């Protein structure tokens, strides 16, 4: 077992127990774990965003790797001179002669580059209004992008799914009452549920009663989702506990047991100290 894995097991166990200690109450262990988590994850996603988005999809499209820059067109020779500046800035991130990968050059991405830079203009109060342009792009894109998807899958597909026959006979001529009742439940539930979402009429009289039935269907749906969640969540907790049990073995230096005892003792002492302060 290498030092890396044993040390890793201890870190894993410490962080796991520290987060779990929150169930008792807010305490120094949780605070440490929470702050580490926030700091590490912010940098983690920043790193991932750079290497998976900006690097291949922006820089890779603006300056894809070329074997010999001198064979390029006049414009591109000048264009790659700009890249040389970036290369000078960091050899790790910007290797010589462009970004490796198999992207085609696509200079339209200069616009995306500028929108990105406009976002950073927020740091300079005088031109911070440029950031609004980037915000406008994002919002406009979101609105245009989502309308179709939601209209199609949330509205039209659901209407389509609700159009069901209430009179069903199979090939042998038998009437399928069971399936008919099921369909009726589906249709009534959907339509009355929709009534609940009527805003411009008062929910009184018959309308009120219909929307009431709709609420009952909504409640069944909430209850069912809740019941489902319970099952999946418990299975995950079992998985987590199994990991802790694994790390309590000798080959990991009894990490779980030792850290558990240390943390419980510390929490007890802290608790004791606090009650002392209060009584004094």
């Amino acid at each position, binding site marked *: 077992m290498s030092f890396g894995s044993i040390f890793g097991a201890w870190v894993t166990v410490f962080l796991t127990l520290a987060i779990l200690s929150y169930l008792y109450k807010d305490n120094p262990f949780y605070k440490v774990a929470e702050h580490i988590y926030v700091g590490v994850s912010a940098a983690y996603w920043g790193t991932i965003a750079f290497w998976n988005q900006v690097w291949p999809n922006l820089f890779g499209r603006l300056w894809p790797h070329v074997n010999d820059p001198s064979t390029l067109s006049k414009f591109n020779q000048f264009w790659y001179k700009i890249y040389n500046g970036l290369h000078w800035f960091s050899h790790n991130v910007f290797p010589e002669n462009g970004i490796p990968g198999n992207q085609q050059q696509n200079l339209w991405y200069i616009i995306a580059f500028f929108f990105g830079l406009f976002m950073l203009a927020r740091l300079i109060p005088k031109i911070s209004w440029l950031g609004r342009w980037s915000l406008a792009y994002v919002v406009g894109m979101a609105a245009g992008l989502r309308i179709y998807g939601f209209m199609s899958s949330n509205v039209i597909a659901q209407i389509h799914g609700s159009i069901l026959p209430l009179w069903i006979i199979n090939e042998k001529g038998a009437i399928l009452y069971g399936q008919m009742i099921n369909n009726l439940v589906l249709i009534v539930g959907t339509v009355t549920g929709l009534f609940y979402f009527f805003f411009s009429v008062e929910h009184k009289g018959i309308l009120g009663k219909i929307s009431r039935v709709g609420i009952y269907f909504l409640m069944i749906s909430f209850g069912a989702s809740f019941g489902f969640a319970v099952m*999946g969540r418990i299975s995950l907790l079992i998985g987590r506990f199994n990991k802790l049990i694994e790390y309590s073995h000798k080959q990991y230096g009894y990490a779980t047991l030792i850290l558990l005892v240390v943390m419980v003792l510390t929490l007890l002492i802290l608790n004791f100290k606090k009650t002392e302060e209060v009584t004094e």
Partner: protein
Amino acid sequence: MSKFLENLGSIDRRYIFLIIAIVVFLPLIFPLGLPVEPTNLTIDSFNAIDKIPKDEKVLVSFDYGPSTKPEIHPMAIAVLRHLFTKGNRVIITCLWPDGLFMARQALQQVAVEEFDLTYGVDYVNLGYRPGNEAVIKGITRSFPANFAVDSRAIKIKNIPLMNGVQSLKNIGFIFSLSAGYPGSKEWVQYASDPLGIKTSTGVTSIQVNEILPFVKSGQLQGIIAGMPGAAEYEQLLVNNDIHPVIGKAGKSMDAQSIAHLVIVLFIVIGNISYFAKRKKEKKY
């Protein structure tokens, strides 16, 4: 007594946390061995696999990752045990990138350690290919075009097991271990439906009701549903003398059942105390 009942309603939630932790943790260390009664769904899945003729090759697809490992991995182990005991040869594919690691672990445990089988003859791991349902569509036409080499970079034409396996049409049965997209649904839509190959699946509890209609309509031969389903399958292996002991899911079932029971008990106690309080309020 009524005072006690009322106070129960305002119980500190940390006691609930503690009880949940205990009822999940203790059965993992000290198993109770509560009986697991296989349900129809799981029995159907078991029979479907049991009925596969001995000389048919079976494709098992690992379409899950570490996050759902507690639920799906025990199914993988149980199904592989069942297939190898029957003498079926197994071809493995992965539609999820981390599925490859899951497949390696499962094969190491079952094929290598328990059954001591020969790689490339009794089983082969073709590994992961990106493309989701496009991979399934691809292998309905040709394996070599989509899997030129297996997960060990051996050319597929040099693998004895793949002799005569041109496309999915030469496969007798498909089993998808699925935690979402791509998974069982895609196997039904792009392989089982068009080619008419018998297909069965094991899925996470969250997915069950989404996949269930395919079982009802006969498009799927069976479904193993979440960790409880895996436990039932393990029990069926024991009942049929295929494997002597239950596996990880069965051992976790004590914890799962008791946790559910305790949560329901909490709800019942909460309601009793709620009624006690309301009764008192009415009196005054």
